[in-house]
């Protein structure tokens, strides 16, 4: 049966991880994620959850900005929509947390499509400004729609519960947040093996010839906005369950800039870039904090003296990356992989 063989080989050829080495490394990575809570203390678990939430949101922004070429500074506000929706549902209806997260994602997605509507005509920096304007409007709503959002004092919500057990510690929430993030990242990776993802890239690279290939621009851009803000909404919902206090200040504009920086540092338009960028941006400030803390036995004033330096070093690291690795950490990673010739991810 030649056709049968051919079909299986195309299947194998288009697999997400197409070599045995890659698959082995993926299993190792998953095992590490599963074993992590057994060895990590509460502080590291806290960081693990935070990284996972940020990876989920950065991956969403990467779909929109990295793959579809639409610059957005609304990601934090969309996370806010998800977070407020989830908190409201949890407080007022007490519906199951998974359902809440999905509804949170969907409501962010709807708002995202409204914000993305001008993207057919408005491009580049102008679109970025339009998303900033949308963020400002959303923040105004967060602060003033008191009946729903609790106004300036925000919402305080009960923890998620799993068959009666409250998930009130990072160690418990990790088992919700990490698997969801893994699924979301895998979903995003799948996307770019199909027509939907190809259409995004086509719109990014040459939107005019994309139309002649039968790819409707507006619909494709709106789909990308919807998906990206769905990711933001779910990430925001997880954020809500993680911190359990949501105020209008929880999702400031700098947070949107943080995500944009994350995908630039990580590598726009690669799935790995979103993961690496968000991890880098979350971990480096913590690492610097640890280093400064470690110096205090020798330098009693270290914390007071070096705290401002920390911010500067962080900024300098980002600038350094932009100069020396403009295509992001994912590219550096790839080069390293080529160097050692034994790395898990596809080129």
């Amino acid at each position, binding site marked *: 049966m030649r056709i049968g063989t051919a079909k299986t080989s195309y299947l194998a050829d288009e697999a997400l991880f197409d070599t045995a080495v890659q698959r082995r490394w993926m299993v190792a990575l998953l095992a590490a994620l599963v074993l992590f809570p057994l060895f990590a203390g509460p502080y590291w678990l806290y960081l693990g959850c935070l990284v996972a939430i940020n990876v989920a949101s950065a991956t969403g922004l990467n779909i929109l900005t990295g793959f579809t070429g639409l610059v957005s500074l609304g990601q934090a506000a969309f996370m806010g929509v998800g977070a407020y929706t989830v908190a409201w549902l949890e407080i007022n209806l007490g519906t199951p947390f998974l359902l809440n997260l999905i509804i949170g994602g969907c409501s962010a997605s709807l708002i995202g499509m409204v914000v993305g509507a001008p993207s057919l005509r408005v491009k580049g920096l102008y679109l970025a400004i339009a998303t900033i304007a949308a963020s400002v409007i959303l923040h105004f709503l967060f602060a003033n729609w008191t009946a729903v959002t609790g106004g300036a004092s925000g919402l305080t919500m009960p923890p998620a519960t799993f068959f009666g057990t409250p998930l009130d510690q990072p160690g418990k929430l990790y088992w919700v947040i990490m698997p969801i993030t893994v699924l979301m990242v895998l979903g995003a990776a799948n996307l770019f093996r199909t027509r939907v993802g190809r259409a995004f890239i086509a719109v990014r690279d040459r939107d005019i010839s994309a*139309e002649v290939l039968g790819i409707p621009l507006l619909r494709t851009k709106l789909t990308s906005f*919807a998906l990206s803000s769905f990711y933001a909404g779910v990430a925001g919902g997880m954020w809500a369950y993680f911190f359990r206090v949501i105020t209008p200040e929880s999702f400031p504009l700098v947070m949107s800039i943080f995500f944009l920086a994350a995908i630039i540092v990580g590598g726009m338009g690669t799935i790995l870039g979103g993961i690496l960028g968000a991890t880098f941006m979350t971990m480096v400030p913590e690492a610097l904090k640890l280093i400064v803390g470690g110096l205090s036995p020798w330098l009693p004033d270290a914390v007071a003296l070096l705290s401002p330096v920390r911010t500067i070093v962080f900024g300098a690291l980002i600038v350094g990356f932009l100069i020396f690795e403009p295509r992001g950490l994912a590219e550096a990673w790839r080069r390293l992989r080529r160097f050692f010739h034994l790395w898990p991810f596809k080129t």
Partner: protein
Amino acid sequence: MAIDVDPSRLLPELPLPSGPPALAVDGLMLFFGGLRVLNGVSFEAREGSVTSIIGPNGAGKTSLFNTVSGFYKPAAGAIRFRGASIDALRAPARAQLGLARTFQNISLFHGMTVLDNIKLGRHAHMKSGVLDALWYRGRARREEMELRREIEEKIIDFLEIDHIRKAPVSALSYGLRKRVELARALAMRPKVLLLDEPVAGMNREETEDMARFILDVKEEWGVTVLMVEHDMGMVMDISDHVVVLNFGQVIASGKPREVAANPEVIAAYLGSGNVEDLRARVRQGAQAKRGAV
């Protein structure tokens, strides 16, 4: 005096079409500011034929293609695709009907592989939505595998591009890029294929290959081909019908040898000057080309 065309090389006369023409353009007018780029262009492309559009630089050939494929909105005129008006349809909808094209200055996606570029052509005929795509197993995978097999068996083999399927487009030579662009257009399941200068800038051998592919597409796939081309040898060899455009107007049309015999066409096409002299140059060029094809 005609340009010498070996009659045995001419394709047999097609039977008169019974149905409507594959593409019928009627009285197209197009302006850029005050510039009249298309001035009442009318012609028909018969189902299953190769129709060539020739004319000097700036005659409006590419603009005509852009209008037919839906980029430009004409000020007046009508376009009928297999009997039905497509004036109200936007570019993606026209593509979905089976109107495919290539571009004069190649418009492939440079960051993608050859295979992904070709797959893009099928977009409008696939159904997986976002949820299918995120999950991948099931419908999305089935569709992608079907597409892959069809591209491998029908297109990649046919155009002899097996060796580059995984290469990024940016690494390819000009001639290969033109071929990949044709592959992408074929993946669109075209009924009418618009080729804007398919052999411009190609060497003799690449031109021969391309001419062969175009004839095969017409004969084996039953696709109607509409081609803009400056290479007169190739136009004379593979066209069933030639339309001559000058300053946005059709100045002649007919069988290749009739058009080639028309002194007005030769003068317009090559600029003014000594007609006899120009005719000799055209003849020479055409013969050189024919030796190759």
